[in-house]
């Protein structure tokens, strides 16, 4: 209200005063933003810095100090002794098919609910979306028992069960992430003009062809965003593998790090190297696929 009263005729002095004030405001704003950015980058930058310092160097000079020596020795130790490559492969075995399957399944559901009006549209969307919003701990106790009892044949399982298997972890990732993917993709598909599908239906094209050859190619941006996001989600998961995998050397890399900590990562320099190594794939996503990652996140939560 006061602002209205303040609106005096725009005299020359008033304009000049305003400009000056704004400029000072800008300086303050940039100072604040730079401070925030430095604060935000510091923990990771410090981890990288510490990982490059040999333990002796930090032991002599302290951790908050300038370096005497910088090298990659900690990385070499972590890579070789803790067998990081082995755990990376475990992760790939779970995550690569996991991402592909979840997106494939979700796009089929999204197609049916967004292209056709059938009675269960809303119920189905709720069914999927709510499943992704549940805390994982709500399902874990019975799921753990289920995995111990559920048979799984040979090539997929080496003990005949879902428990302690890559496949089992992949399946729960898929089931848990389906809700999110269905939600994002159905929102996206609703923005595609219906005339395209209509024309194909009138032409008598079978439904599968409409899905695979007409609709999906139009969803490429959303599929790329979702694949990026789902890769990070599954890669970053700590909990499912922690509970559902028993054998230490079957763990995906994110969950394995905790086990390796006591055994191999005996000082903070090695912990830093291990953490940076494991963070590396997600940092690549951050640098190379930022656009896809952000559009996936925002499609999932702002559109609706």
């Amino acid at each position, binding site marked *: 209200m006061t*602002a209205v009263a303040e609106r005096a005729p725009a005299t020359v002095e008033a304009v000049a005063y305003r400009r000056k004030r704004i400029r000072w405001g800008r300086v303050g704003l940039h100072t604040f933003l730079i401070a*925030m*950015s430095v604060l*935000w*980058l510091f*923990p*990771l930058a*410090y981890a990288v810095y*510490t990982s490059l310092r040999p333990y002796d160097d*930090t032991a002599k000079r*302290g*951790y*908050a100090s300038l370096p005497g020596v910088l090298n990659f020795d900690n990385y070499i130790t972590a890579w070789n002794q803790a067998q990081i490559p082995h755990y990376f492969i475990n992760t790939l075995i779970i995550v690569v098919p996991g991402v592909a399957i979840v997106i494939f399944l979700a796009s089929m559901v999204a*197609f049916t609910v967004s292209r*056709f*009006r059938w*009675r269960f*549209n*809303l*119920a189905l969307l*709720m069914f*999927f*979306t709510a499943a992704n*919003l*549940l*805390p*994982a*701990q*709500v*399902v*874990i*106790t019975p*799921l753990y*028992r*289920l995995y111990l009892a559920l048979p799984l044949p040979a090539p997929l399982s080496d003990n005949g069960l879902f428990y302690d298997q890559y496949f089992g972890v992949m399946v729960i990732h898929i089931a*848990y992430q389906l809700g999110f993917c*269905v939600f994002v993709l159905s929102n996206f598909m609703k923005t595609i003009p*219906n005339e395209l599908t209509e024309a194909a*239906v009138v032409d008598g094209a079978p*439904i*599968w062809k409409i899905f695979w050859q007409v609709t999906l190619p139009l969803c490429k941006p959303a599929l790329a965003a979702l694949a990026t996001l789902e890769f990070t989600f599954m890669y*970053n*998961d*700590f*909990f499912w593998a922690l509970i559902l995998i028993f054998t230490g050397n079957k763990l995906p890399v994110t*969950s394995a*790090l*905790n086990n390796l*900590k006591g055994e191999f990562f005996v000082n*903070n320099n090695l*912990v830093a190297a291990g*953490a940076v190594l494991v*963070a590396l794939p*997600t*940092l690549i996503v951050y640098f190379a696929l930022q656009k896809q990652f*952000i559009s996936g996140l*925002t499609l999932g*939560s*702002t559109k*609706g």
Partner: protein
Amino acid sequence: MTSSQAPAQTGPQAGGAGASVSPRKRRRFSMLTTQDKVVLWIMAGIPTLLVAFFIWLPTIASVGLSFTNWSGIGGLASIKFAGLKNYQDLVTIYPPFWPAVEHNVIWLGFLLLIATPIGMFMAVLLDKEIRGTRVYQSALYLPVVLSLAIIGFIWQLQYSTSDGFINSALGLANTDHFIDFLGDSKINLWAVLVAASWRHIGYVMVLYLAGLKSVDPSLREAAAMDGANQRQTFFRVVFPVLRPINVVILVITVIEALRAFDLAYIINRGLNGLELLSVLVSNNIIGEASRVGFGSAIAVVLLVISVGPILLYLTRSLREEAQ
């Protein structure tokens, strides 16, 4: 659904508020051939069964098992009905329960009252025409790509006693006066919350920036024409318009607080000041003394708390679908 049924052109009329919005034109299901219908049923059916079996069945089983007594040994036949015993024990004689509830509430309060508003504030600042806004945004959003497990490791480097950065920088590292950020149960929850907020603030900022971009610029111009200053424009015009995304952010914050697990588990397995409901659930199923019924009861407490926010989210985000 068979072709004999009435055309399913009207979905459930859950929230038919905005009558002015014209219903989207979509092909009626009943106009398709039988073969197409079968294909559609399969396309929607397989994923539905998967989610039903691996998510909803265990959820229901959690509720059922919470009224029973079962060590997990000796098959389903050895499950004994126990009534409300598990819940009774939980609130009366299980020492970590109330601390866990308290910590979850503090976690939620901290995210909701401190981290989320900071994230929104940063989004509002960075939404303006500022030189280098992309750089600032990138810096704040960096932790969002990292897993909470890695975040736990990264912050341990800051917090540890004799090798941590903070203690070293304060010159306390090799003295007896070091600050035990993660071991002292009076402060470790707050130390962990700082690490959790590091990520949460960036997350909220990303979501809110997208929301702010969607605000019609003419609204702001109109407000400026009427002489509103920036603060007034935000609180009286932009914020109300962004109501849907405010609700989404609220819900996401609540759910993140309930899901909190990785950080506490990495740091000390959720003991000594870091007890959380989610950690208690897993502590009751791994290890030899598996208490399935009891662990399920804790899970049901989590479930009951999350039902409200989940429903809020669903009604908000799927409202359009219901029209």
